[in-house]
């Protein structure tokens, strides 16, 4: 009876019940993500140990093999699987999934898993120590590239299913606006599809024929440009699911309403526009790209500041409005009374805070000439451990605390909630030490992606090593955080008491302004995105091809093949 009443409540809000057959699908994606977290975290621990200079890897394992596993499994596997699982959960909850769509989603899952296994095998056999950026002309075993291509193709199928889900819903609900979260998922999958076209082109047209020996040489700069056409929006593909939680889920958790449906949609549309045509800011110190076009892309890069500021405003406005409505007085009464003891709020909130220095660091990195100060120093590593490994990861953990029990028909107990809070604090402490030390060491000139080295023992280098010791301490604390998180994951999946955990989705104010209909004009958004990409890339890309040097033959001995 209780359950039936709840279902009716949810349906009146346009929310559906996730069936058992669906939750199995969603949990499969999320489970792979947590397995990846454990493996990738262990690799990270080994790295900081090696870099401290007090430890060498046993059994002749190569540092760069470990580094490749770390980057691929955390940067590509964990994120993509978790995000697709989260996307499907949101779509299942807001617009529903048909049996046929569910079967296709399983197909996507298995293609991705086979691809992941192929790539992992190549790396573990020492045939692909090329790091997750796999820059040519270092050449890995073809299985590495083929596996990656399969992961991308699987993720496309998942995205196509998401689009189909919304399409079917729209057909059944003419003249209704799409649910906000379904709209956001559609934007993010669109962003992913357009971005991965670049890396897919590089892998399918350049790398696979070249690694199989069908092409003698490879155009290095073209491959790098295609990679970074993908590599930058990749970080927004990670970030936007966190924003989905911030905009549409956190307000419900703190007992408030959606700040503004149309502003949330607007900021997502702006992220779609300005995340893709900007990859050059990763290539600022490269010799073969015209500096004027570098600058144009730098200016376009900075446009993402606008939706970021909109997001920051919305978050704190929601917090304040909610607090004041609950009757908390004074300038900061609303802030003091935020639900600090609820890990579903606390973990993402720390993520939001980390994004303030994280975003500022990003502005420094993308600043044209200023980039030379930090390019390829370990500052950059510090930067993305603050953004993706703190902002995004803590938000994903925050999502897991309610999503996993919801899907598993269990509940987040007060004890697990407390453990989660401890986890978030451990993460914050570990990351502050590790990322802080990386930032400072980078400003002193120390390179990223390098095994322990005294570089002939200069004075400069002895200064670096002290910070590497600090990173080892921070990294160890983080690994404890990972063990704890995996423990919580297992508890929530298999052992937490049966029950009914809420799937929190914020509602609009009863008197909220109508969302303009033009937000559903997908042709317009895609059209503007494509136009911006063509503007930013056509001329410099033609220039790169026309002024190409002779291609590069493959090199496999430097990676120990």
């Amino acid at each position: 009876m209780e359950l039936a009443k709840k279902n009716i409540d949810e349906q009146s809000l346009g929310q559906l019940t996730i069936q058992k057959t669906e939750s199995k699908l969603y949990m499969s994606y999320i489970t792979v993500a947590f397995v990846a977290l454990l493996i990738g975290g262990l690799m990270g621990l080994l790295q900081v140990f090696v870099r401290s200079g007090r430890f060498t890897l046993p059994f002749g394992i190569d540092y760069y093999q470990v580094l490749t596993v770390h980057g691929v499994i955390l940067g590509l596997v964990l994120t993509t699987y978790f995000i697709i699982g989260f996307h499907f959960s949101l779509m299942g909850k807001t617009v529903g999934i048909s049996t046929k769509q569910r079967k296709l989603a399983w197909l996507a899952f298995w293609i991705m898993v086979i691809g992941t296994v192929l790539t992992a095998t190549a790396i573990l056999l020492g045939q692909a120590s090329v790091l997750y950026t796999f820059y040519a002309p270092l050449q890995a075993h073809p299985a590495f590239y083929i596996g990656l291509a399969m992961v991308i193709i699987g993720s496309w199928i998942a995205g196509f299913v998401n689009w189909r889900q919304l399409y079917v819903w729209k057909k059944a609900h003419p003249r209704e606006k799409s649910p906000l979260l379904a709209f956001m998922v559609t934007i993010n999958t669109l962003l992913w599809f357009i971005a991965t076209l670049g890396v897919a082109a590089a892998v399918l047209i350049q790398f696979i024929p070249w690694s199989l020996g069908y092409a003698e040489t490879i155009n290095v700069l073209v491959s790098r440009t295609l990679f970074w056409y993908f590599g930058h929006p990749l970080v927004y593909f990670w970030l936007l699911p966190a924003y989905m939680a911030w905009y549409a889920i956190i307000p419900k958790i703190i007992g408030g309403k959606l700040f503004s449906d149309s502003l949330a949609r607007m900021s997502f549309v702006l992220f779609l526009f300005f995340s893709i045509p900007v990859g050059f800011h990763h290539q600022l110190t490269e010799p073969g790209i015209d500096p004027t076009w570098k600058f144009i892309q730098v200016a376009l890069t900075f446009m993402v500041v606008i939706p970021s500021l909109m997001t920051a405003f919305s978050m704190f406005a929601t917090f304040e409005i909610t607090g004041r409505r609950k009757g908390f007085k004074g300038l900061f009464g609303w802030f003091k009374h935020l639900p600090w003891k609820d890990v579903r709020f606390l973990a993402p909130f720390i993520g939001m805070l980390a994004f303030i220095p994280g975003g500022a660091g990003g502005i420094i990195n993308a600043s044209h000439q200023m980039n030379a100060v930090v390019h390829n120093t370990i500052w950059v590593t510090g930067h993305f451990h603050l953004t993706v490994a703190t902002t995004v990861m803590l938000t994903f953990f925050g999502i897991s605390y309610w999503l996993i029990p919801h899907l598993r028909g269990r509940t987040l107990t007060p004890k697990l909630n407390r453990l989660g809070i401890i986890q978030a604090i451990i993460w914050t402490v570990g990351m502050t030490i590790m990322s802080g030390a990386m930032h400072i060491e980078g400003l002193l000139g120390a390179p990223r992606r390098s095994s322990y080295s005294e570089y002939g023992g200069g004075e400069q280098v002895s200064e670096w090593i002290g910070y590497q010791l600090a990173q080892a301490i921070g990294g160890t604390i983080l690994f404890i955080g990972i063990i704890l998180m995996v423990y919580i994951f297992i508890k929530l999946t298999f052992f937490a008491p049966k029950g009914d955990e809420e799937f929190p989705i914020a509602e609009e104010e009863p008197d909220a302004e109508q969302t303009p209909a033009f937000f559903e004009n997908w042709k317009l958004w895609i059209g503007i995105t494509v136009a911006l990409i063509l503007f930013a890339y056509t001329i410099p890309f033609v220039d790169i091809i026309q002024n190409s040097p002779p291609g590069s033959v493959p090199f496999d001995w430097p990676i120990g093949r």
Partner: protein
Amino acid sequence: MHLHKYEKIWLLFGIGSLVVFLLVLGYGAFWQGTHPQSHGITIDPNNIESNEAFKPENLGLTQVEEDKYILNIAASAFYYDLGKDEDGNAVRHIRVPKGSTVLFQVASKDVVHGFNVAGTNVNMMVEPGYISSLETVMKNPGTYTIVCNEYCGIGHHMMYATLEVYE
């Protein structure tokens, strides 16, 4: 679409700062010439010696004028070739007087490398097929480590040299 009054102020302030910031960057880049290195000069990656600057005898430091130097470097996994000294030994250490202008020219014989005079703005990607070059004035005395800061293989962290700026 409605924007709250405070949000308008917030966004106006943010966008205003952004415009000022981009103008500063643009002024530096286009009027003061502080663009990152982007010469687009190509070279045959399979035969960099075909270029005058990278012939074995031209590698290393050459004084061209009082206070003006050219430093030619051939990068390969996992070694910076800085030429040979009078005794025929490989040069690992470069010395220039404080205040001298140095033109760094680097080309790769094999894979992608980095070239960073650590702690300075001399920071370039070195890609097969292109000459990376940057001219700068070495103002601060000290010994700088030159490190490869782009992964080039299992010996990547052993790829270095030193540069001394003396008074």
